[in-house]
Protein backbone atom coordinates (compact mmCIF):
# COMPACT_ATOMS: atom_id res chain seq x y z
CA UNK A 1 0.00 0.00 0.00
CA UNK A 2 1.42 3.36 -0.96
CA UNK A 3 1.15 5.76 1.96
CA UNK A 4 0.94 8.74 -0.39
CA UNK A 5 -2.06 7.58 -2.39
CA UNK A 6 -4.13 5.90 0.35
CA UNK A 7 -6.33 7.57 2.93
CA UNK A 8 -4.82 8.45 6.31
CA UNK A 9 -6.12 6.84 9.50
CA UNK A 10 -6.59 8.64 12.81
CA UNK A 11 -6.87 7.07 16.26
CA UNK A 12 -9.72 8.94 17.94
CA UNK A 13 -10.88 6.70 20.78
CA UNK A 14 -9.39 4.32 23.32
CA UNK A 15 -11.13 1.97 25.72
CA UNK A 16 -10.43 -1.07 27.80
CA UNK A 17 -11.36 -3.26 30.70
CA UNK A 18 -8.49 -2.73 33.08
CA UNK A 19 -7.41 -5.30 35.67
CA UNK A 20 -7.02 -2.35 38.05
CA UNK A 21 -10.66 -1.38 37.63
CA UNK A 22 -10.18 2.15 36.27
CA UNK A 23 -10.13 3.55 32.73
CA UNK A 24 -7.39 3.57 30.08
CA UNK A 25 -5.83 6.71 31.51
CA UNK A 26 -5.60 5.22 35.00
CA UNK A 27 -4.20 2.01 33.49
CA UNK A 28 -1.48 3.93 31.65
CA UNK A 29 -0.55 5.89 34.78
CA UNK A 30 -0.09 2.58 36.60
CA UNK A 31 2.02 1.23 33.72
CA UNK A 32 4.23 4.32 34.11
CA UNK A 33 4.63 3.51 37.80
CA UNK A 34 5.63 -0.06 36.98
CA UNK A 35 2.64 -1.40 38.86
CA UNK A 36 1.98 -5.08 38.34
CA UNK A 37 -1.57 -6.44 38.00
CA UNK A 38 -0.32 -10.01 38.36
CA UNK A 39 -1.84 -11.89 41.29
CA UNK A 40 -1.91 -15.47 42.50
CA UNK A 41 -4.97 -17.05 40.94
CA UNK A 42 -6.77 -20.05 42.40
CA UNK A 43 -9.12 -21.53 39.87
CA UNK A 44 -12.48 -21.66 41.66
CA UNK A 45 -14.00 -24.72 39.98
CA UNK A 46 -11.41 -27.45 39.61
CA UNK A 47 -11.28 -30.44 41.95
CA UNK A 48 -7.53 -30.72 41.58
CA UNK A 49 -5.61 -27.75 42.92
CA UNK A 50 -4.97 -25.28 40.12
CA UNK A 51 -3.01 -22.16 41.01
CA UNK A 52 -1.00 -19.87 38.79
CA UNK A 53 0.12 -16.29 38.58
CA UNK A 54 -2.47 -14.54 36.39
CA UNK A 55 -4.05 -11.20 35.60
CA UNK A 56 -7.79 -10.96 36.04
CA UNK A 57 -10.37 -8.21 36.32
CA UNK A 58 -12.07 -8.63 39.71
CA UNK A 59 -13.83 -5.27 39.57
CA UNK A 60 -15.41 -5.97 36.19
CA UNK A 61 -19.19 -6.18 36.54
CA UNK A 62 -20.55 -7.42 33.18
CA UNK A 63 -24.13 -6.50 33.96
CA UNK A 64 -23.17 -2.94 34.79
CA UNK A 65 -20.74 -2.61 31.89
CA UNK A 66 -22.81 -4.01 29.03
CA UNK A 67 -26.34 -4.41 30.43
CA UNK A 68 -28.25 -7.49 31.49
CA UNK A 69 -29.69 -8.12 28.04
CA UNK A 70 -26.18 -8.73 26.67
CA UNK A 71 -24.43 -10.10 29.75
CA UNK A 72 -27.01 -12.87 30.20
CA UNK A 73 -26.38 -14.33 26.73
CA UNK A 74 -22.61 -13.87 26.34
CA UNK A 75 -19.32 -15.52 27.25
CA UNK A 76 -16.90 -13.48 29.35
CA UNK A 77 -14.66 -12.79 26.32
CA UNK A 78 -17.60 -11.03 24.62
CA UNK A 79 -18.48 -9.13 27.78
CA UNK A 80 -14.91 -7.85 28.06
CA UNK A 81 -14.94 -6.97 24.36
CA UNK A 82 -18.25 -5.12 24.31
CA UNK A 83 -17.30 -3.21 27.47
CA UNK A 84 -13.96 -2.14 25.95
CA UNK A 85 -15.67 -1.11 22.71
CA UNK A 86 -18.26 0.97 24.58
CA UNK A 87 -15.46 2.77 26.45
CA UNK A 88 -13.59 3.52 23.20
CA UNK A 89 -16.79 4.71 21.53
CA UNK A 90 -17.53 7.08 24.42
CA UNK A 91 -13.90 8.24 24.48
CA UNK A 92 -14.17 9.13 20.78
CA UNK A 93 -17.11 11.40 21.61
CA UNK A 94 -19.54 9.28 19.64
CA UNK A 95 -23.10 9.02 20.98
CA UNK A 96 -24.31 5.50 21.76
CA UNK A 97 -27.48 6.19 19.78
CA UNK A 98 -25.67 7.38 16.66
CA UNK A 99 -27.68 6.46 13.56
CA UNK A 100 -26.72 3.07 12.13
CA UNK A 101 -24.15 3.45 9.37
CA UNK A 102 -22.94 1.06 6.67
CA UNK A 103 -19.58 2.84 6.42
CA UNK A 104 -18.80 1.92 10.05
CA UNK A 105 -17.47 -1.52 10.94
CA UNK A 106 -15.90 -3.80 13.53
CA UNK A 107 -12.57 -5.59 13.36
CA UNK A 108 -11.98 -7.83 16.35
CA UNK A 109 -9.39 -10.31 17.55
CA UNK A 110 -9.54 -13.29 19.86
CA UNK A 111 -7.31 -16.31 20.13
CA UNK A 112 -9.61 -18.74 21.90
CA UNK A 113 -13.07 -17.12 21.86
CA UNK A 114 -15.68 -18.59 24.18
CA UNK A 115 -13.54 -21.25 25.82
CA UNK A 116 -15.24 -20.79 29.20
CA UNK A 117 -18.60 -21.61 27.60
CA UNK A 118 -17.17 -24.65 25.82
CA UNK A 119 -15.53 -25.85 29.03
CA UNK A 120 -18.81 -25.45 30.93
CA UNK A 121 -20.64 -27.47 28.26
CA UNK A 122 -18.08 -30.27 28.43
CA UNK A 123 -18.28 -30.32 32.21
CA UNK A 124 -22.07 -30.69 32.07
CA UNK A 125 -22.00 -33.41 29.45
CA UNK A 126 -18.92 -35.43 30.42
CA UNK A 127 -18.59 -34.84 34.14
CA UNK A 128 -22.16 -34.31 35.29
CA UNK A 129 -23.63 -36.77 32.78
CA UNK A 130 -26.26 -34.38 31.40
CA UNK A 131 -27.67 -35.34 28.05
CA UNK A 132 -28.20 -31.80 26.80
CA UNK A 133 -26.20 -28.60 26.47
CA UNK A 134 -27.43 -25.03 26.85
CA UNK A 135 -29.15 -23.79 23.68
CA UNK A 136 -26.98 -20.68 23.87
CA UNK A 137 -23.71 -22.64 23.71
CA UNK A 138 -23.06 -21.98 20.02
CA UNK A 139 -24.02 -18.31 20.10
CA UNK A 140 -21.92 -17.72 23.21
CA UNK A 141 -18.82 -19.67 22.21
CA UNK A 142 -18.38 -18.64 18.58
CA UNK A 143 -15.29 -16.53 17.94
CA UNK A 144 -17.21 -13.73 16.23
CA UNK A 145 -19.71 -13.28 19.07
CA UNK A 146 -17.90 -10.28 20.56
CA UNK A 147 -17.67 -8.49 17.20
CA UNK A 148 -21.33 -9.15 16.44
CA UNK A 149 -22.55 -7.85 19.79
CA UNK A 150 -20.48 -4.70 19.28
CA UNK A 151 -21.96 -4.18 15.80
CA UNK A 152 -25.52 -4.79 17.01
CA UNK A 153 -25.15 -2.50 20.02
CA UNK A 154 -23.62 0.40 18.10
CA UNK A 155 -25.37 0.07 14.75
CA UNK A 156 -22.25 -0.69 12.72
CA UNK A 157 -23.49 -1.89 9.34
CA UNK A 158 -20.19 -2.33 7.49
CA UNK A 159 -17.93 -5.37 7.61
CA UNK A 160 -17.96 -7.18 10.96
CA UNK A 161 -14.74 -9.18 11.05
CA UNK A 162 -13.05 -11.46 13.57
CA UNK A 163 -9.43 -12.54 13.36
CA UNK A 164 -7.91 -15.47 15.18
CA UNK A 165 -4.14 -15.34 14.82
CA UNK A 166 -3.13 -16.57 18.29
CA UNK A 167 -1.22 -13.85 20.17
CA UNK A 168 -1.25 -11.49 17.19
CA UNK A 169 -5.04 -11.61 16.78
CA UNK A 170 -5.86 -8.08 17.81
CA UNK A 171 -2.78 -6.48 16.27
CA UNK A 172 -4.01 -8.07 13.03
CA UNK A 173 -7.58 -6.90 13.66
CA UNK A 174 -6.32 -3.32 14.11
CA UNK A 175 -4.07 -3.57 11.06
CA UNK A 176 -6.83 -4.97 8.89
CA UNK A 177 -9.21 -2.21 10.07
CA UNK A 178 -6.52 0.27 9.00
CA UNK A 179 -6.48 -1.36 5.54
CA UNK A 180 -10.26 -1.15 5.15
CA UNK A 181 -10.21 2.57 5.94
CA UNK A 182 -7.19 3.18 3.72
CA UNK A 183 -8.82 1.58 0.70
CA UNK A 184 -12.14 3.36 1.18
CA UNK A 185 -14.29 0.45 2.36
CA UNK A 186 -15.01 2.13 5.69
CA UNK A 187 -14.82 5.59 7.25
CA UNK A 188 -14.75 4.36 10.86
CA UNK A 189 -13.89 0.99 12.38
CA UNK A 190 -13.85 -0.03 16.01
CA UNK A 191 -10.90 -2.39 16.29
CA UNK A 192 -9.43 -4.38 19.14
CA UNK A 193 -9.65 -7.69 20.89
CA UNK A 194 -10.72 -9.56 23.99
CA UNK A 195 -9.80 -12.76 25.74
CA UNK A 196 -10.96 -14.73 28.77
CA UNK A 197 -8.39 -17.52 29.07
CA UNK A 198 -8.68 -18.40 32.75
CA UNK A 199 -10.42 -21.69 32.00
CA UNK A 200 -8.90 -24.71 33.73
CA UNK A 201 -8.14 -26.48 30.44
CA UNK A 202 -6.32 -23.43 29.09
CA UNK A 203 -4.34 -22.86 32.29
CA UNK A 204 -3.36 -26.54 32.37
CA UNK A 205 -2.35 -26.43 28.70
CA UNK A 206 0.05 -23.51 29.17
CA UNK A 207 1.40 -25.15 32.29
CA UNK A 208 2.06 -28.34 30.28
CA UNK A 209 4.04 -26.34 27.72
CA UNK A 210 6.26 -25.22 30.61
CA UNK A 211 5.71 -21.61 29.64
CA UNK A 212 4.08 -20.19 32.77
CA UNK A 213 6.35 -18.06 34.97
CA UNK A 214 7.52 -19.77 38.13
CA UNK A 215 6.56 -18.10 41.40
CA UNK A 216 4.48 -18.51 44.53
CA UNK A 217 1.67 -16.53 46.10
CA UNK A 218 4.06 -13.99 47.61
CA UNK A 219 6.18 -13.40 44.51
CA UNK A 220 3.37 -13.51 41.90
CA UNK A 221 3.39 -9.73 41.15
CA UNK A 222 7.05 -10.05 40.14
CA UNK A 223 6.65 -13.32 38.23
CA UNK A 224 6.76 -11.94 34.69
CA UNK A 225 10.23 -10.58 33.92
CA UNK A 226 10.76 -10.00 30.21
CA UNK A 227 14.41 -9.63 29.11
CA UNK A 228 15.65 -10.39 32.63
CA UNK A 229 18.49 -12.85 33.19
CA UNK A 230 16.87 -16.00 34.54
CA UNK A 231 13.32 -15.16 33.36
CA UNK A 232 11.01 -18.14 33.59
CA UNK A 233 7.97 -17.46 31.42
CA UNK A 234 4.72 -15.69 30.80
CA UNK A 235 1.60 -14.96 32.84
CA UNK A 236 -1.89 -15.50 31.39
CA UNK A 237 -4.27 -12.56 31.49
CA UNK A 238 -7.86 -11.75 30.69
CA UNK A 239 -8.82 -8.40 29.25
CA UNK A 240 -10.14 -6.37 26.39
CA UNK A 241 -9.12 -3.19 24.59
CA UNK A 242 -10.41 -1.20 21.63
CA UNK A 243 -9.35 1.65 19.38
CA UNK A 244 -11.64 3.81 17.29
CA UNK A 245 -9.97 4.28 13.91
CA UNK A 246 -11.27 6.90 11.50
CA UNK A 247 -10.47 8.18 8.07
CA UNK A 248 -8.61 11.43 8.69
CA UNK A 249 -11.12 13.75 6.99
CA UNK A 250 -14.03 12.03 8.75
CA UNK A 251 -12.38 12.62 12.12
CA UNK A 252 -11.56 16.26 11.33
CA UNK A 253 -15.03 17.03 10.01
CA UNK A 254 -16.70 15.99 13.23
CA UNK A 255 -14.05 17.77 15.30
CA UNK A 256 -12.76 14.59 16.92
CA UNK A 257 -9.72 14.62 19.16
CA UNK A 258 -6.93 12.80 17.33
CA UNK A 259 -4.47 10.92 19.54
CA UNK A 260 -2.13 10.03 16.71
CA UNK A 261 -1.99 8.48 13.27
CA UNK A 262 -1.86 4.77 12.57
CA UNK A 263 0.55 5.01 9.69
CA UNK A 264 1.87 1.52 8.99
CA UNK A 265 1.05 -2.15 9.36
CA UNK A 266 3.55 -4.92 8.70
CA UNK A 267 2.70 -8.59 8.53
CA UNK A 268 4.75 -11.66 7.85
CA UNK A 269 4.91 -15.36 8.54
CA UNK A 270 8.11 -17.00 9.74
CA UNK A 271 7.18 -20.14 7.77
CA UNK A 272 9.65 -22.08 9.92
CA UNK A 273 8.12 -23.57 13.06
CA UNK A 274 4.77 -23.64 14.81
CA UNK A 275 5.92 -22.37 18.20
CA UNK A 276 9.57 -21.35 17.86
CA UNK A 277 9.81 -17.75 16.62
CA UNK A 278 12.25 -16.72 13.91
CA UNK A 279 14.05 -13.37 13.81
CA UNK A 280 14.04 -13.12 10.01
CA UNK A 281 10.23 -13.24 9.88
CA UNK A 282 9.96 -10.60 12.59
CA UNK A 283 12.43 -8.37 10.76
CA UNK A 284 10.24 -8.47 7.66
CA UNK A 285 7.16 -7.40 9.63
CA UNK A 286 8.95 -4.53 11.42
CA UNK A 287 10.52 -3.38 8.15
CA UNK A 288 7.19 -3.44 6.35
CA UNK A 289 5.41 -1.39 9.03
CA UNK A 290 8.17 1.24 9.07
CA UNK A 291 8.38 1.40 5.30
CA UNK A 292 4.66 1.97 4.94
CA UNK A 293 4.72 4.66 7.63
CA UNK A 294 7.69 6.33 5.93
CA UNK A 295 9.80 5.97 9.06
CA UNK A 296 13.59 5.76 9.21
CA UNK A 297 15.28 3.93 12.09
CA UNK A 298 16.15 7.26 13.71
CA UNK A 299 12.48 8.37 13.66
CA UNK A 300 11.24 5.57 15.93
CA UNK A 301 11.59 6.46 19.59
CA UNK A 302 9.87 3.50 21.23
CA UNK A 303 8.94 -0.10 20.63
CA UNK A 304 6.33 -1.76 22.80
CA UNK A 305 7.78 -5.23 22.50
CA UNK A 306 5.93 -8.50 22.28
CA UNK A 307 8.24 -9.54 25.15
CA UNK A 308 6.16 -12.28 26.76
CA UNK A 309 8.91 -13.18 29.23
CA UNK A 310 9.87 -16.50 27.66
CA UNK A 311 13.46 -17.67 27.48
CA UNK A 312 13.64 -17.99 23.71
CA UNK A 313 11.08 -15.48 22.48
CA UNK A 314 12.50 -12.39 24.20
CA UNK A 315 16.01 -12.96 22.87
CA UNK A 316 14.82 -13.56 19.31
CA UNK A 317 12.76 -10.35 19.34
CA UNK A 318 15.75 -8.30 20.47
CA UNK A 319 17.92 -9.83 17.76
CA UNK A 320 15.24 -8.86 15.20
CA UNK A 321 15.14 -5.29 16.52
CA UNK A 322 18.93 -4.91 16.48
CA UNK A 323 18.96 -6.22 12.90
CA UNK A 324 16.37 -3.64 11.79
CA UNK A 325 17.66 -0.65 13.75
CA UNK A 326 21.39 -1.27 13.24
CA UNK A 327 23.49 1.55 14.66
CA UNK A 328 20.36 3.19 16.12
CA UNK A 329 19.39 0.11 18.15
CA UNK A 330 21.37 1.22 21.21
CA UNK A 331 19.24 4.40 21.39
CA UNK A 332 15.92 2.66 20.78
CA UNK A 333 13.71 2.63 23.88
CA UNK A 334 12.12 -0.80 24.29
CA UNK A 335 9.82 -2.12 26.99
CA UNK A 336 7.47 -5.01 27.53
CA UNK A 337 4.38 -3.96 29.44
CA UNK A 338 3.33 -7.62 29.66
CA UNK A 339 5.48 -7.58 32.80
CA UNK A 340 2.52 -5.74 34.37
CA UNK A 341 -0.66 -6.63 32.46
CA UNK A 342 0.34 -10.17 31.58
CA UNK A 343 -0.26 -11.93 28.30
CA UNK A 344 -3.87 -11.60 27.19
CA UNK A 345 -3.26 -13.78 24.09
CA UNK A 346 -5.66 -12.53 21.40
CA UNK A 347 -6.28 -9.27 23.29
CA UNK A 348 -2.59 -8.53 23.89
CA UNK A 349 -2.05 -6.62 20.64
CA UNK A 350 -4.94 -4.27 21.36
CA UNK A 351 -3.88 -3.60 24.97
CA UNK A 352 -0.35 -2.86 23.82
CA UNK A 353 -1.50 -0.72 20.90
CA UNK A 354 -3.52 1.35 23.40
CA UNK A 355 -0.42 1.77 25.57
CA UNK A 356 1.69 2.73 22.54
CA UNK A 357 -0.85 5.36 21.48
CA UNK A 358 -0.91 6.90 24.96
CA UNK A 359 2.89 6.79 25.15
CA UNK A 360 3.05 8.80 21.93
CA UNK A 361 0.28 11.20 22.87
CA UNK A 362 1.84 11.93 26.28
CA UNK A 363 5.52 11.59 25.44
CA UNK A 364 5.89 9.04 28.23
CA UNK A 365 7.38 5.56 27.92
CA UNK A 366 6.40 2.88 30.42
CA UNK A 367 9.05 0.51 31.74
CA UNK A 368 9.49 -3.22 31.69
CA UNK A 369 8.65 -3.91 35.32
CA UNK A 370 10.72 -6.42 37.29
CA UNK A 371 13.69 -5.92 34.98
CA UNK A 372 16.86 -5.48 37.02
CA UNK A 373 19.56 -7.27 35.10
CA UNK A 374 19.18 -7.52 31.34
CA UNK A 375 20.06 -10.99 30.08
CA UNK A 376 23.14 -11.05 27.87
CA UNK A 377 21.11 -12.47 24.99
CA UNK A 378 18.65 -9.54 25.29
CA UNK A 379 21.23 -6.75 25.13
CA UNK A 380 21.55 -4.33 22.23
CA UNK A 381 18.64 -1.92 22.74
CA UNK A 382 17.86 0.73 25.36
CA UNK A 383 15.74 -1.21 27.83
CA UNK A 384 13.36 1.09 29.73
CA UNK A 385 13.42 0.14 33.39
CA UNK A 386 12.45 1.56 36.77
CA UNK A 387 10.18 4.58 36.54
CA UNK A 388 10.01 4.70 32.75
CA UNK A 389 10.85 7.77 30.68
CA UNK A 390 8.99 11.08 30.90
CA UNK A 391 9.16 14.29 28.85
CA UNK A 392 10.44 12.45 25.82
CA UNK A 393 10.35 13.87 22.33
CA UNK A 394 8.59 10.81 21.01
CA UNK A 395 7.36 11.20 17.42
CA UNK A 396 6.79 7.62 16.29
CA UNK A 397 6.43 4.24 17.98
CA UNK A 398 5.87 0.59 17.11
CA UNK A 399 3.84 -2.14 18.76
CA UNK A 400 5.04 -5.70 18.10
CA UNK A 401 2.89 -8.82 18.27
CA UNK A 402 4.45 -12.16 17.42
CA UNK A 403 2.27 -15.25 17.54
CA UNK A 404 2.47 -19.02 17.68
CA UNK A 405 2.15 -20.21 14.13
CA UNK A 406 4.89 -17.79 13.12
CA UNK A 407 2.49 -14.91 12.39
CA UNK A 408 3.98 -11.49 13.01
CA UNK A 409 2.09 -8.18 13.13
CA UNK A 410 3.61 -4.75 13.73
CA UNK A 411 1.67 -1.49 14.04
CA UNK A 412 3.42 1.83 13.39
CA UNK A 413 1.99 4.95 15.01
CA UNK A 414 3.18 8.52 14.62
CA UNK A 415 2.13 11.85 16.04
CA UNK A 416 -0.33 13.78 13.92
CA UNK A 417 1.24 16.36 11.62
Amino acid at each position, binding site marked *: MNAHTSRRVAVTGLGMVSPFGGDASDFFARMMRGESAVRWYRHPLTRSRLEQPAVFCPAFDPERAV*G*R*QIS*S*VTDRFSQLGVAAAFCAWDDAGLPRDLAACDAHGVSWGTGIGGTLTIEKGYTEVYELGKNRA*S*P*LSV*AMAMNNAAASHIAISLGLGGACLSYSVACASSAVSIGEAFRRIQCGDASLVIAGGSEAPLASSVMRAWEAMRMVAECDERTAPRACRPFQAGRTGLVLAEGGAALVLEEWGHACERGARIYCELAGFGQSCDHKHLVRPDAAGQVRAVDAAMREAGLQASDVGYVNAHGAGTREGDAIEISALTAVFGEHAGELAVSSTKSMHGHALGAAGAIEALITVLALARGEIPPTANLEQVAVECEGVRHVMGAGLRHTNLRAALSNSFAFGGSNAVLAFRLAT
Partner: protein
Amino acid sequence: MNTLELLREFVKKHADNPPENITLDSKLLEIGIDSLNLLELLFEAEEKFGIRFPNDLPQPETVGQLIEIFDKLQKAKTQA
Protein backbone atom coordinates in the same frame (compact mmCIF):
# COMPACT_ATOMS: atom_id res chain seq x y z
CA MET B 1 -43.84 -22.28 40.54
CA ASN B 2 -46.28 -21.79 37.67
CA THR B 3 -45.38 -20.77 34.14
CA LEU B 4 -46.11 -17.07 34.64
CA GLU B 5 -43.90 -16.97 37.73
CA LEU B 6 -41.10 -18.70 35.83
CA LEU B 7 -41.40 -16.14 33.08
CA ARG B 8 -41.34 -13.23 35.54
CA GLU B 9 -38.19 -14.61 37.20
CA PHE B 10 -36.56 -15.10 33.83
CA VAL B 11 -37.30 -11.56 32.69
CA LYS B 12 -35.95 -10.17 35.95
CA LYS B 13 -32.70 -12.06 35.32
CA HIS B 14 -32.30 -11.13 31.65
CA ALA B 15 -33.86 -7.77 30.84
CA ASP B 16 -32.16 -4.41 31.33
CA ASN B 17 -35.37 -2.73 32.47
CA PRO B 18 -37.70 -5.45 33.67
CA PRO B 19 -41.25 -4.09 33.62
CA GLU B 20 -43.18 -3.84 36.87
CA ASN B 21 -46.17 -5.55 35.40
CA ILE B 22 -46.14 -8.51 33.09
CA THR B 23 -49.57 -9.37 31.78
CA LEU B 24 -50.85 -11.93 29.34
CA ASP B 25 -51.01 -9.20 26.70
CA SER B 26 -47.37 -8.11 27.15
CA LYS B 27 -45.32 -8.50 23.98
CA LEU B 28 -42.31 -10.74 24.53
CA LEU B 29 -39.93 -8.38 22.70
CA GLU B 30 -41.10 -5.45 24.79
CA ILE B 31 -40.31 -7.25 28.04
CA GLY B 32 -36.82 -8.21 26.83
CA ILE B 33 -37.34 -11.69 25.42
CA ASP B 34 -35.99 -12.01 21.90
CA SER B 35 -35.59 -15.16 19.84
CA LEU B 36 -32.19 -15.89 21.40
CA ASN B 37 -33.12 -15.81 25.05
CA LEU B 38 -36.50 -17.38 24.26
CA LEU B 39 -34.46 -20.50 23.48
CA GLU B 40 -32.97 -20.38 26.94
CA LEU B 41 -36.36 -19.79 28.54
CA LEU B 42 -37.77 -22.84 26.77
CA PHE B 43 -34.76 -24.83 27.94
CA GLU B 44 -35.38 -23.76 31.55
CA ALA B 45 -39.06 -24.62 31.29
CA GLU B 46 -38.23 -28.05 29.89
CA GLU B 47 -35.89 -28.71 32.82
CA LYS B 48 -38.30 -27.40 35.42
CA PHE B 49 -41.57 -28.92 34.20
CA GLY B 50 -40.28 -32.04 32.47
CA ILE B 51 -41.92 -31.07 29.20
CA ARG B 52 -40.47 -31.05 25.71
CA PHE B 53 -41.10 -28.34 23.12
CA PRO B 54 -41.31 -29.51 19.52
CA ASN B 55 -38.73 -28.13 17.09
CA ASP B 56 -41.46 -26.59 14.94
CA LEU B 57 -42.85 -24.56 17.84
CA PRO B 58 -44.86 -21.58 16.53
CA GLN B 59 -43.10 -18.32 17.41
CA PRO B 60 -45.17 -16.75 20.23
CA GLU B 61 -45.51 -12.98 20.25
CA THR B 62 -47.16 -12.38 23.60
CA VAL B 63 -46.83 -13.73 27.12
CA GLY B 64 -50.34 -15.19 26.79
CA GLN B 65 -49.43 -17.14 23.65
CA LEU B 66 -46.28 -18.50 25.30
CA ILE B 67 -48.12 -19.58 28.44
CA GLU B 68 -50.79 -21.23 26.34
CA ILE B 69 -48.06 -23.35 24.71
CA PHE B 70 -46.54 -24.17 28.11
CA ASP B 71 -49.88 -25.15 29.58
CA LYS B 72 -50.89 -27.27 26.61
CA LEU B 73 -47.67 -29.27 26.89
CA GLN B 74 -48.01 -29.67 30.64
CA LYS B 75 -51.58 -30.86 30.26
CA ALA B 76 -50.53 -33.36 27.59
CA LYS B 77 -47.84 -34.60 29.92
CA THR B 78 -50.27 -35.12 32.80
CA GLN B 79 -52.69 -36.98 30.58
CA ALA B 80 -49.99 -39.22 29.13
